[in-house]
């Protein structure tokens, strides 16, 4: 398997070993093996080999690398020693490496399945049990035109108009975020993210609880609700923006994505929703893969600076080794804060997208300080808008023998949100065939994306493949497969 190494992320000696063991065309020929004492030199070596890198979307930035090294020298050393013990100077057999690659691949895919499925589950359960999250009702500033039109043509035209307005918001938010990032206005981005998460955590949580309580039909007092909201919100702020246990952080990110998806689902008109899903997949594709795409610029800028992209917006499946690198302000990921407006719907979308994009790019860039298998996943940035398409893979020091979760797969939160929206719309019909077909298609799309990621090792948009599959499956199931199987059932023909 052709191995593109994100050299920035590999520690030099790991890189050396990988390169030696590979017969493929690795550009870098025999980089020197830094000794353990030269920890700061690691960063220097990595930056010097930047130009020679095949795939450049390695996340580990030199500065953060050196920062991490400075803080955790003992871990690095043990890692090095372990590596050396495991793998003396001779090459490892290629098949073992191949095994490792594939092993990481499968387990990582599964690690992403669980949070995505959980998010979808939360969204669907909420929709099914409460009545207040059904679409219709108030219109939204992002999609100002309603769809109560007399003819289909009119409906399509107005839906298209809605979609373009929405995409305009998304693109504007992304561009602003990238401009802010380029001009190093980290404080603004930081503050923005904090505000967004604040609003998301407290206000949306409050309305979520009110819907749940209304559907449960039990009297709950104001004091308990305020107390619970305050608790969950404050702990969320702690875990997402500062340090917290990993499962709690993952749970919060999943829950936030579910909340956002619910808001989206409630406020998006029907046809507009489908069009938006399609257009945003295309946008994701363009933004990530085109040389001038904003997200790509973001990734490359972060890559040049050696910074992490905002971790807050990205879901990481395992511990990230560069924990300490997260602390410095630029690398702190956060939810894109939405501008606090009175109209919540307005705010939610915009801020998130940018943040998400940043995060996505960040995620990719920040991936693994050391990557045994460089895989660029598209990080999905969090919160709203951006359908973080990038699933980022980050391998924490692979040489740590007892740590199975060396590589962490990162998925942007935007991807969570849009997958959940698709599934929510699919389940709105009430037909389980459709729901399950869409769910399976989304997961297959995710698998394929991760596979592509493993092969290409660059940041990839995670939305297009899955959403395409989901849309195709949805419409074909509703209009073709559903009636077909109904007819078969009536005629008692079993295939």
């Amino acid at each position, binding site marked *: 398997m052709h191995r593109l190494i994100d050299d920035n992320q590999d520690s030099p000696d790991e890189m050396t070993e990988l390169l030696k063991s590979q017969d493929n065309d690795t550009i870098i020929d025999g980089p020197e093996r830094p000794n353990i004492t030269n920890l700061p030199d690691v960063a220097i070596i990595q930056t010097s080999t930047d130009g020679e890198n095949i795939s450049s979307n390695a996340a580990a930035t030199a500065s953060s690398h050196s920062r991490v090294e400075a803080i955790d020298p003992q871990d690095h050393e043990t890692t090095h020693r372990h590596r050396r013990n495991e793998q003396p100077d001779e090459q490892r057999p290629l098949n073992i490496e191949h095994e490792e690659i594939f092993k990481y691949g499968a387990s990582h895919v599964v690690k992403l399945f669980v949070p995505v499925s959980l998010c979808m589950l939360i969204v669907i359960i909420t929709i099914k049990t409460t009545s207040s999250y059904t679409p219709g009702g108030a219109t939204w500033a992002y999609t100002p035109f309603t769809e109560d039109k007399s003819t289909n043509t009119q409906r399509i035209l107005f839906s298209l108009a809605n979609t373009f307005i929405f995409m305009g918001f998304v693109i504007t938010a992304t561009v602003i975020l990238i401009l802010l990032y380029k001009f190093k206005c980290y404080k603004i981005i930081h503050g923005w993210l904090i505000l967004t998460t604040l609003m998301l955590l407290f206000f949306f949580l409050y309305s979520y609880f009110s819907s749940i*309580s209304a559907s449960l039909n*039990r*009297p709950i007092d*104001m004091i308990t*609700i305020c107390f619970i909201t*305050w608790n969950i919100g*404050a702990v969320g702020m*702690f875990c997402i923006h500062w340090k917290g246990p*990993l499962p709690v952080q993952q749970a919060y990110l999943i829950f936030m994505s579910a909340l956002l998806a619910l808001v989206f689902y409630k406020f998006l008109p029907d046809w507009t929703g489908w069009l938006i899903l399609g257009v945003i997949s295309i946008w994701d594709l363009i933004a990530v893969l085109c040389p001038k795409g904003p997200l790509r610029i973001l990734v490359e800028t972060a890559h040049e600076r050696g910074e992490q992209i905002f971790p807050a917006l990205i879901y990481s499946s395992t511990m990230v080794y560069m*924990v300490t690198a997260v602390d410095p302000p630029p690398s702190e990921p956060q939810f894109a804060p939405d501008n606090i407006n009175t109209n919540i719907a307005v705010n939610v979308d915009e801020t998130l997208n940018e943040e998400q994009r940043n995060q996505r790019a960040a995620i990719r860039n920040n991936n693994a300080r050391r990557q045994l298998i460089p895989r660029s996943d598209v990080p999905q940035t969090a919160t709203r808008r951006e359908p973080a398409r990038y699933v980022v893979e980050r391998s924490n020091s692979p040489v740590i023998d007892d740590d199975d979760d060396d590589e962490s797969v990162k998925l942007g939160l935007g991807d969570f949100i849009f997958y959940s929206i698709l599934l929510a719309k699919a389940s709105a019909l009430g037909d389980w065939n459709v729901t399950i077909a869409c769910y399976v298609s989304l997961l297959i799309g995710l698998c394929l994306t991760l596979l592509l990621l493993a092969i290409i090792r660059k940041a990839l948009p995670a939305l297009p493949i899955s959403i395409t599959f989901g849309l195709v499956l949805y419409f074909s199931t509703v209009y073709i497969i559903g009636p077909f199987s109904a007819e078969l059932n009536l005629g008692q023909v079993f295939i």
Partner: protein
Amino acid sequence: MVSLSKKSPEERLNICRKYYRAGFAFLPLLWLINAIWFYKQAFKVEPYPQQAQIRTYVIRSAIGTLIWIIIIVAWNITFQLLRTKMGPLGDFLTFVYPRGYY
């Protein structure tokens, strides 16, 4: 995304202390997470100089969580039983009014 084992003992103590202190702001959930997260550090890992301090924080966080749980449960029982008898105060405190059925 933090791994406690990869942090220095001072940082662990710092995190534990911050969680403990922040929990006084009516945040028993924070105490609960603190107790669970640092439980292994306080009791199961071989001792290091800061462990004694972490241990006190963990124990106090656990006690604080228990106290808060008792308070919340007591308050909820009171409210559910006396809601209809409290008059205007009961209505004011109610967050959601249950619907009648027809």
